[in-house]
């Protein structure tokens, strides 16, 4: 009977879980929040388990009817409310369709309980979100997520941990340049060529620059982009250190003279 107890506990835990408030809410606020994701996965997995558990209960209750009246089987017969199979003759209706007969069994009480429960839940949900307005609808949820993120960002900015277009300097250590090259190959090479020779975007290896040749200029172009020329903004995709590294790496490409260079664009800058 140990198995039955376990089954029972699992079923009760699940019911508690499904009616707990986390599921009633729309989403948890997202953003760097591993716990939120974890909860979601747990919800998903637990939910899948229930289908199987319910099924097991259903099938199991079939056999337990013959067993001695344990607490569990009493409970099961209460929520199922169906007579033993030997007595089904009494329930036979006078329906006969091509040999198919029908029994007049009661609808299982657990079924009705969940059905009514779901109707009640629906009413609570609608009242909560659309009459009382006490639940966050999606626009509020979004505004909240953005606000939290911008507060976190502000804290980081003030701490001085982030470089920006004013404070940026050239990095020349090998590790930073290697990391810059990595970022370049993944994100920039498609338009500027594998070796900076230029393709859709301009050539980095000549002495001509469209938006300036200082590391600050490059940083700014990368960060904000030049949408009218097709250069996208990267600040949502690269963090400030990555932008600093890739700008530093690009500056090392001048004079490398790769094959298939694109014609110069922009102004000629003098280098000593």
């Amino acid at each position, binding site marked *: 009977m140990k198995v039955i107890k376990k089954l029972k506990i699992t079923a009760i835990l699940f019911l508690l879980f499904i009616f707990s408030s986390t599921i009633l809410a729309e989403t948890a606020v997202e953003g760097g929040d591993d716990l939120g*994701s974890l909860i*979601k996965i747990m919800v998903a997995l637990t939910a899948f388990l229930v289908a199987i558990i319910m099924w097991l209960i259903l099938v199991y209750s079939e056999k337990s009817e013959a067993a001695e009246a344990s607490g569990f089987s009493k409970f099961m017969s209460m929520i199922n409310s169906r007579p033993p199979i030997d007595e089904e003759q009494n329930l036979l209706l006078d329906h006969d369709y091509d040999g198919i007969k029908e*029994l007049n069994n009661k609808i299982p009480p657990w079924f009705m309980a969940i059905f009514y429960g779901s109707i009640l839940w*629906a009413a609570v949900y609608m009242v909560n979100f659309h009459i009382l307005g006490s639940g966050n609808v999606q626009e509020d949820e*979004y505004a909240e997520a953005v606000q939290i993120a911008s507060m976190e960002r502000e804290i980081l900015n003030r701490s001085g941990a982030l470089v920006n277009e004013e404070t940026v300097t050239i990095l020349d250590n090998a590790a930073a340049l290697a990391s810059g090259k990595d970022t370049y190959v993944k994100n920039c090479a*498609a338009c500027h060529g594998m070796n900076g020779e230029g393709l*859709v975007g301009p050539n980095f290896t000549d002495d001509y620059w469209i938006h300036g040749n200082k590391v600050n200029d490059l940083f700014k172009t990368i960060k904000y982009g030049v949408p009218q020329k097709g250069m996208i903004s990267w600040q949502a*995709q690269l963090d400030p250190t990555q932008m600093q590294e890739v700008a530093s790496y690009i500056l090392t490409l001048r004079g490398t003279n790769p094959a298939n260079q694109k014609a110069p664009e922009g102004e000629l800058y003098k280098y000593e």
Partner: protein
Amino acid sequence: MNVEKFSYDNQIVKLFLIATIVWGIVALTVGVWIAVALYYPELNLGLSYTTFGRLRPLHTNAAIFAFIGNAIFTGVYYSLQRISKARMFNDTLSKINFWGWQLIIVLAAVTLVSGITTSKEYAELEWPIDILIAVVWVVFGVNMIGTLMKRREKHIYVAAWFYIATFVTVAVLHIGNSIELPVSLTKSYPVYAGIQDALVQWWYGHNAVAFFLTTPFLGLMYYYLPKAANRPIFSYKLSILHFWSLIFIYIWAGPHHLLYSAIPNWAQSLGTVFSIMLWMPSWGGMLNGLLTLRGAWDRVRDNPVLKFFVVGVTAYGMSTFEGPMLSLKSVNALAHFTDWIPAHVHVGTLGWNGFMTFGMLYWLVPKMWKTELFSKKLANVHFWIGTLGIVVWVIPMWWAGITQSLMWKEFTPLGLLKYPNFLETVLQIVPMYIMRSVGGALYLTGIIIASYNLFKTMGMGSFVANEEAEAAPRGPITDKLQYGMIHRYLESKTLLFTGLAFVAIIIGGLVEIVPTYLISSNVPTIASVQPYTPLELEGRDIYIKEACNSCHSQMVRPFRSEVERYGEYSKAGEFVYDHPHLWGSKRTGPDLHRIGGKYSNMWHYLHMENPRSMSPGSLMPRYPWLLENQLDVSSLEAKISAMRTLGVPYPEGFESQANAELMQQAEIISNDLLENGIVTEPDKEIVALIAYLQRLGTDIKTKVAETK
């Protein structure tokens, strides 16, 4: 008592049965093909006809309407005659039903691979075929209702309740969703736009699942399961309760396909709560099926028919639990647009529809050919290989969906997206795509084994086209409308029953769709949103023709992670001129609603020629023909005037200048490409497509710029 002699029409059942097997193999083969194409894009062999975008609707239409559709007709034509104790109403109508349906399937196959499509999911067929479908479907309905009217049985059995609901609702859905304005024989625009089009589409799409994949199969279950198990139906009361609650509630749940989209919040919430309320009515069917097997479980082990039914009904229970769960907004935020959704759908189609069909075929063929099944062993092999196929299909896709979604949403401690490059999240799940195609191939192997087994069985037996039967005439109906017997009374009145089913299914759709027209606050207008230019309109039609919306959504949801990745979240007012809407339902590639202005024209040109040149590792097929095909502007004038009829404010007489305006804009783009070293004629399809892509989602930015 006098007894009438008559015969059952088995010939029509045989025709539908063979069509089921043949189309089943075709539909699943295309399915495996596109499953492979997802990770091996060169599989299209460089042809436009075989790209994923064209074959995906072919697979869904073939699976739903050809395979499952023919299975429904097979099952209905056999069982309806017997529970009515009458031959079909009219043999000619039966034949029109059969040949008309096969004609539709062939036309569908030809048009879909040619890129003739409305882009609306599960309703991709163009208007002439839509009319044909409506006609054939009504023929089926008349034939069915006619049979019920002349039945010898006093009451209508529960199986037929579900058949009636199926006929009525599919007719309403199909006609409602297909109201479109023809531009030419092969092109039309839906009268609905933007959020209304989305609501109508998913009212249809969701209920196509409900009333084409669910209710007819519940009807089949109520006939074939008790027949095969030789057991009485568990509960007549439960039948009544779950039938009416199911058909009433199902209709309301459509908006759960549009959670976190630009449709009004109240409509989304209705979608959620009605989906939750749908859980028990759906499980009512499962319960009545499984509990009917009470006392017959020992036979399940060695009867392949019952084995298929048990797994089929259990799969139905699983997917109808998963459905309400996915309708919770917190779960939906995680699952929508990912591979979790195809996984959910395939539990239903492969498990419920497929296995119920196979169980039915294994029972019917020996019965109709008066023999034993050729090989029980092969049927068991089919059962296990099919079950394994479903598991190998579904579990990797659950994980793929959850994995990718979490990657989309993950931020670094600095508040940046951890995986800003969409492609990275796709490449992560390629191994799961490969496993899925293996699962599909297993399932396909199963149906091939089944067809061998069934055709062998047919060869062994002798088929009787007209099965003799006899029954007493119905005589006068004595039921009275009295307390406790109301439903029994209804069961004796075919037309009244049909009428009430119609009332039950019409309410939900009206409540959800009509207010979006009547109450203006549901679609807040945005002044800067303007109609498409002629070139953009033509480009949009190329987007539709190539079915870009099979893999790319146009709906940025209001999540911080999506706004960071794509741009401002999508607003209802941005779609008011979108006939049809192109929001999509699955992101195999990134969202495109804010693609406009993000990349240069040259980038798009090179990307269409070979996606891997701009995004190394991309799984998108190449579209080199767009660079060569001449843009067909022959119906441009008709398109403009059709759009005006539908309410798009093109000025009067604009169609006469449309061509010139189109060329002007095309030249700007081709000149820009030329400056970047790409020589192309302005009248190529690629130019129009670029114009459309560059326009997408930009109107709202104009407004932001102005207010600044």
